[in-house]
């Protein structure tokens, strides 16, 4: 069975209505439990839970410290290419945006790596658009052996691939793959992805299944918050996670919280998720699932990030560039999304320490997946 089959039992409107119908009693019950269900998660992200925010924050902090200790893992994105054959209404790299296109050569990748290594990074997230010619499996096969030598942990955020490709990537040293569904609203997904391979909703929805089957160690999920109703999208993400955890019990999972941000040719978010609601969402995830890794990017402001460190997040990026060549080769080229927190990794590490946490640079070893 794949997730689509399970997913098709659920209807967006019904799920959405039930989230907004949750009551104070539902929230109190969810908070009092030991093991929370999908319905409890819906209660915790509902408007009814907002008055309980401080209580949720305390619970989230306690659960996070119990499972992860007082640590925050640091990673950096490395954009390899902004070539893309997809039209995505919200993305700066969309095919219909007239921007200079760039794919890093091996030499350029090494130049970028040198800067990241200088910053102290051991965990790298490789990012590309979806362009079969320029950045397909051949490109990954060429680049990964170069990159692998320099990092303890490699994560990938690229187009969805077939199961056999993931098996190959695993042998090339990829530990983690992130594939965000963007939205679980089938019709709106179609509106936002009118062209390119990405327009295939089911293929994307079943990507974590293929990752799990290929034995990928860590699978990242998420919805682009604001593209549709963020609460309903988060509920579907929770449903997805719950299914995956049972099905692929040897994999770990992480959740990210990208908020829709302004960019060239910008799209107005359908719903705005406020800072307060984002805190609610992060805490709800932690209370729902004590083992899940929660990741926070530099899209968010410095003051927000400084405070969220203690509330449930387990990994953050710092000093990020979201343009190919952004660290060394072409620092001025167009970014995929705007960075809000521009502080250096050293500064962020100091902030983490000041909060009483240990910044962790290395939390994996290639030897653990060498065979």
């Amino acid at each position: 069975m794949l997730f689509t089959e399970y997913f098709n039992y659920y209807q967006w409107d019904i799920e959405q209505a039930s989230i907004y119908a949750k009551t104070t009693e539902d929230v109190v019950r969810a908070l009092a439990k030991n093991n929370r269900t999908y319905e409890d998660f819906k209660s915790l992200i509902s408007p009814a839970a907002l008055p309980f925010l401080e209580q949720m924050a305390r619970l989230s902090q306690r659960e996070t410290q119990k499972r992860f200790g007082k640590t925050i893992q640091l990673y950096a994105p490395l954009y390899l290419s902004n070539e893309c054959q997809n039209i995505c209404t919200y993305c700066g790299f969309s095919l219909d945006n007239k921007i200079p296109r760039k794919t890093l050569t091996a030499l350029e990748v090494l130049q970028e790596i040198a800067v990241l290594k200088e910053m102290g990074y051991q965990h790298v997230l490789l990012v590309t658009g979806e362009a079969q010619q320029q950045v397909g499996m051949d490109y990954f096969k060429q680049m990964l052996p170069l990159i692998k030598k320099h990092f303890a942990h490699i994560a990938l955020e690229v187009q969805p691939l077939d199961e056999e490709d993931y098996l190959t990537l695993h042998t090339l040293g990829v530990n983690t793959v992130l594939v965000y569904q963007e939205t679980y609203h089938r019709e709106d997904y179609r509106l936002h992805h009118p062209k390119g391979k990405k327009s295939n909703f089911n293929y994307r929805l079943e990507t974590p299944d293929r990752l799990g089957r290929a034995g990928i160690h860590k699978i990242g999920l998420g919805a682009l918050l604001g593209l549709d109703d963020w609460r309903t999208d988060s509920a579907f993400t929770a449903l997805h996670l719950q299914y995956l955890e049972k099905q692929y019990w040897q994999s770990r999972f992480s959740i990210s919280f990208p908020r829709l941000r302004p960019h060239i040719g910008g799209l107005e978010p359908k719903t705005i998720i406020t800072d307060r609601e984002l805190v609610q969402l992060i805490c709800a995830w932690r209370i729902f699932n004590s083992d899940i890794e929660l990741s926070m990017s530099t899209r968010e402001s410095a003051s927000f990030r400084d405070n969220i460190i203690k509330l449930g997040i387990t990994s953050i990026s710092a000093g990020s560039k979201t343009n190919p060549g952004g660290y060394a080769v072409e620092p001025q080229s167009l970014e995929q999304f705007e960075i809000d927190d521009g502080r250096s990794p050293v500064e962020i590490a100091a902030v983490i320490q000041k909060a009483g946490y240990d910044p962790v640079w290395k939390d994996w070893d290639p030897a653990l997946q060498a065979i």
Partner: protein
Amino acid sequence: MNQPLKIADKTFSSRLFTGTGKFSSIKVMEEAILASGSELVTVALKRVAHQQIENDQLLAHLNHDHINLLPNTSGVRTAKEAVYAAELAREALETNWLKLEIHPDPKYLMPDPIETLKAAEALIKLDFIVLPYCHADPVLCKRLEGVGVSAVMPLGAPIGSNQGLTTLAMLEIIIQQSTVPVIIDAGIGKPSQAAQAMEIGADAVLVNTALATANDPIAMAIAFKQAVEAGRLAYESAGLTPISNNAVASSPLTSFLNTI
């Protein structure tokens, strides 16, 4: 009324499974099983006269439309022996359902996890519906699920011990992770323990010794029936827990939201 339970191709309205051993007579066994409402009853191949099946008294007393037989391999010590016994049971009892039990240790009857996994894999290839009796080991249960078993039957305590859910912490993990029904087998000695198993979300329980050795097995069968229904109802209604959480006056962790 509890939700029906589906295992492989069969649907059960009762979540209380029973055994056939240790009763004072076959007649008492039959009455107790009928009183329990059980629709799945395990039978040890070793107790069935499988060469002359038509004369078998035990089976004659289990011949009721609502009762499904679940032959078990009790007595075997290896995967190889289990596969052989399973084939005999399938032929004699005309069912491909099997409770896989391999306990090489005659004292505590502890299931052998390695042989059980091997046998389960082989039996599924031979088209058996396999329900393995196993330790309350979450990884083992996932491995068994991975080879295609139709349910897992982790133990609550050593078989026949009546100690209840001594493996509670592990059972909770198994229930949380499983994609196949979880039947808690062995160790359940009292109706309250059966209710507890259902409250934590077990799909069914298998009770034998506590019924068979009770002073009044029929009354005890009714007590277990009601306990299982009550525990399941509590679980399905999801209304168990509210423990009061006092409101928090100050907000040190989230007050930053007022300033950014």
